[in-house]
């Protein structure tokens, strides 16, 4: 029969243990509900990841394909890049709108 007793220290350790065990399991469970690959879910190599395709539209309406890797520190597939890239491209001269093809959806973002 165990002779261990509950002490404040034991209770604190039990709370930490239970909380961490819950987080270790729960976080990746929640991540399975997100599109692949999701952060914090141990979803390494779970799908083919691509960076978005982006075009800029000038004042005349002509579109030009952009190399967006020049903006990226690291092209992580978990990131929804659209609004961030649009913000950077709209800051360039003569750009009226940005078209982003990302995660199977195409969006046209007007520059302010």
């Amino acid at each position: 029969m165990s002779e261990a007793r509950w002490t404040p220290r034991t209770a604190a350790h039990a709370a930490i243990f239970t909380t961490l065990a819950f987080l270790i399991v729960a976080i990746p469970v929640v991540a399975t509900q997100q599109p692949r690959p999701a952060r914090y879910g141990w979803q390494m190599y779970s799908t083919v990841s691509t960076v978005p395709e982006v075009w800029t539209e000038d004042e005349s309406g002509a579109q030009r394909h952009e190399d967006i890797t020049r903006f990226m520190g690291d092209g992580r597939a978990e990131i929804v890049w659209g609004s961030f890239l649009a913000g950077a491209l709209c800051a360039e001269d003569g750009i009226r709108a940005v078209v982003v093809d990302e995660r199977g959806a195409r969006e046209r973002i007007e520059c302010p």
Partner: protein
Amino acid sequence: MPLSALRDRITRVAEPRAVGVARAAVGVAAILEGLERAPILERMTEPGTLSVPYVAGQPTILVVPAAVIVIAWVVLAATFAAGAFTTQTGISLVLLLAAVLFSDQQLYSNHLYLLIWFVGLLTLARSGSALSVDAWRGRGRASVAAWPIDLLRLQVIVLYLFAGISKLNLVYLSGTVVAVSLRQDGPLAVPAAWRSFEVMAAASFVSVLAELGLAVGLALPRWRRAAFVVGLGVHATIALWFDPTLPLVIFGLMSLGPYVLFLHDRPGRLSVVWDDSCTFCSAWVSWVRRLDWLRVIRLVPSSDARERERLGVSLSEADEALQLVGPHQRSSGFRAVVGILEALPLSFLWAPLLRFWPIQRLGAATYRRVAQRRKCGLKPRASRSSG
């Protein structure tokens, strides 16, 4: 979990040496991870690089020069690996790594996230209690709380479980991910002709089975030996045949290091009776003593009649071959050698392979030949000594 069982789990103690080995391995992985992340940190601070915060206006560590971040990272990781001021360096390293991870969405990496968990749990486990500078300075401990070690084991199991579960999708199982991830050039490049749908799909299924199998195998003591070999195989395979190499080597070291926590590390759990009248055997035994970092092996010279008989080993048995006696095992000769190798941190991952029939047979024959032909400088048996 009933409260009494929880209380018992929280109050259990464990040997500190295994967690010290895990600390050293994870610390080395942390050093390499810092060096591997350095170019990305450098790029993040260049003008023109997008900032992708989690929350607009959030604080970021990127106001600090990348070189300073990397130097601090490597110094803390090296200090943690050596087990110097382990609690302080562990906490500092976790805070630094978390600051990097959460400063910008582009800085997220699964390896970095895993490193934070491992360093944090190893710090909680007081992993500087043994095999460390702290222990050498007299700050070692004879035992540590077992519950952080249980959490480390849980994290390793969860890692493989969800790595496997997340691959249960049509894109992965079609073989596409494997095909595009395989090495494209160099001596280990997989030829394009081998990247057929059938081969790649089969490889994908096998990889999912391997990861799920690892989660189950590590969780069940009966299957752990097999899991050690599978884990070594999985990480060696992806490091050799997948791109990019360095991150996968680091990931392998980071993941395999904590495997030592799945070993039974009770001191003196295994008794090895050896012929102490033979200098050849003495040389071999001295190596075992050096590599038995977990101190699980108790070396009993055959001249110690009382201890030898307590273990149920006769003098003729001890003279004929090495004898291994454990809680639920008794083996001799080559099988005893395998049992010893399965208990040593440097060999436990691959030693179970020696039990496969062709290797086992060859090993037994080699052992017998070596035992028959050994050139022993005979020395008088000690009257009484212990291992």
